[in-house]
């Protein structure tokens, strides 16, 4: 404080406010006089504070006991009800709270009421003195001189080169954290296997769905046939293959050229994985025919081939071409025609390769 007047133009401090200088500033009156507390003057008050502190410490002991009782008296078994767990949790909480708050508030009350409360002032010292700086500079100069690093650039340069290269193995060694990305992202389990078209089955039990099961206004959560039988990578496949199956009035669908046969009597299947960042878009409004992603609210219009009508997604949801097999079950006639889920750097390339 009080540096206003040293505002000569080339000084690093700020210039003084116009018309204001040291003479016109209020003088610092210093630390206010110490006020005595009740406990400082009245021995009774001090005694009372002492008892209060002891009481608080005592309540901590009670809290610890509550905790121990709650821990040992309530055992958890297979038949423990939720209410019992809740009771134990609450008792452990209140026990710990008393144990801790008793100690904490007791100490603080002690400090506030009984320990001396005179404010004191301590001088600050320069973080770095000029003397230290000069001494340090001398030492560094000596060290540099003794190593001779300035005189021997060969040593210096080779050392720099070696040190610069040495971390490379530390980077390389993480090369096996994962496989290199290939085009697996562009394929799902829906691709027909050995010429056999995959049936659409219910999530989670995997039973096949007949076209006649799908009434107007209904929504089925669908996984590909055979997914539940996978032993490895089941979740990886499921993460790409989940599909929402809906039926609406065929007149309200407006398939674009080439996609007329991707549905069946108003039954259409779309990837459930949001094209934004991959949440399952599973909220189907059967009257408005909107699909909503609960994570970031991207909204897709089923009547416009799941075009984005709101929210952060940029691309429509991929449609799964479906048909009905000889037994009346719904099948996927092919894999998705594009990679499902969020966009990635190579996505366009993968899509072109798929359709080539």
């Amino acid at each position, binding site marked *: 404080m009080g540096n206003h007047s040293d505002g000569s133009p080339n000084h690093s401090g700020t210039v003084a406010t116009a018309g204001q200088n040291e003479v016109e500033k209020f003088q610092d009156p210093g630390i206010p006089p110490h006020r005595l507390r009740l406990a400082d003057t009245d021995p009774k008050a001090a005694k009372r504070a002492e008892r209060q502190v002891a009481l608080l410490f005592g309540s901590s002991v009670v809290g610890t006991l509550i905790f121990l009782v709650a821990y040992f008296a309530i055992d958890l078994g297979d038949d423990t009800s939720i*209410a019992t767990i*809740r009771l134990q*949790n609450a008792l452990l909480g209140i026990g710990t709270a008393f144990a801790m708050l008793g100690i904490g508030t007791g100490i603080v009350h002690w400090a*506030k*009421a009984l320990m001396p409360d005179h404010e004191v002032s301590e001088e600050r010292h320069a973080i770095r003195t000029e003397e230290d700086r000069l001494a340090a500079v001398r030492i560094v100069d000596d060290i540099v001189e003794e190593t001779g690093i300035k005189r021997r650039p060969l040593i210096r340069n080779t050392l720099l080169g070696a040190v610069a290269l040495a971390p490379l193995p530390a980077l390389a060694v993480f090369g096996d954290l994962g496989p290199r990305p290939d085009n697996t992202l562009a394929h799902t389990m829906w691709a027909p296997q050995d010429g056999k078209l995959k049936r659409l089955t219910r999530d989670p039990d995997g039973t096949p769905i007949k076209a006649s*099961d799908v009434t107007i206004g*209904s*929504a089925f959560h669908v996984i590909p046939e055979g997914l539940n039988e996978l032993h490895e990578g089941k979740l990886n496949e499921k993460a790409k293959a989940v599909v929402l199956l809906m039926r609406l009035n065929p007149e309200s669908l407006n398939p674009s050229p080439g996609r007329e046969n991707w549905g069946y009597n108003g039954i259409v299947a779309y990837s459930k994985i949001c094209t934004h960042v991959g949440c399952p878009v599973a909220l189907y409004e*059967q009257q408005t025919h909107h699909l909503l992603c609960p994570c970031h609210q991207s909204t897709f219009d089923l009547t416009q081939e799941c075009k984005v009508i709101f929210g952060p997604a940029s691309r429509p949801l991929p449609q799964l071409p479906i048909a009905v097999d000889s037994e009346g079950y719904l099948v996927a006639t092919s894999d998705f025609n594009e990679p499902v889920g969020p966009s990635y750097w190579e996505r366009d390339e993968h899509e072109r390769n798929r359709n080539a």
Partner: protein
Amino acid sequence: MKALSQKRRHPLAAIALLLMGLLVTGGLYAVASTVNQAKATTSTNANDAEEGGKLFAANCATCHGMGASGSQAGPSLVGVGAAAVDFQVGTGRMPMQMNGPQAYKKPAQFNEEQTRQLAAYVASLGPGPSIPEAGLLDEKGDAAAGGELFRTNCAMCHNAAAAGGALTRGKFAPALAGVSGQHIYEAMVTGPQNMPVFSDANISPEGKRDIITFLKQIEANGSPGGADLGALGPVSEGLFIWIAGLGVIIAFTIWLTSRTS
């Protein structure tokens, strides 16, 4: 609200709920089986249908049209079945208070008998889902299986703990606590408003029974960790730590740094 939710967690609440459920379903069953010569659950008594027709003409036909054939203001009800009527009227959604994105749940405008009569009338117009049998509402299914079905088919709108969630343009999926098993069942089979239909071919009646069992079980259980903060997830937890958690801490810091008198 709070008192209710606390009572809900009372250890006896489950038993009370179970008793109530049994009484209601038992009562309904008794009524249906004695008054009705027809199927116990559909209550398509000719008398009922006739009375219902009168009620309908007086209260519903303005929007749904004479003969429930629909109008500009409301859809046709031919073929929606008794279940749809029991759900919409029984939860007070119909008659609608005003036009809006969605009909709100409110105190039922018709008593049980009138609701049954309306349902009978609408059911007589064309085949549709009927009111579920009591056996499917006994809450004695497989809660774990129901939980899986619920998470796959319902949680994205209604929230994993059935606390409800938002839909587009002012619509929402309501919370399911306090909704009777019968109404939950009926909602699934009829797909009220923007809810998709979950026909028996999609989720079997046993599956629906499991879902109701799951919902009633988690509702009766309450949260083992204490107050559930609305079961809304990290948002309510974050609000709580900033307002209550930091609030209490700040109160302590102020006490701690204040001077004792």
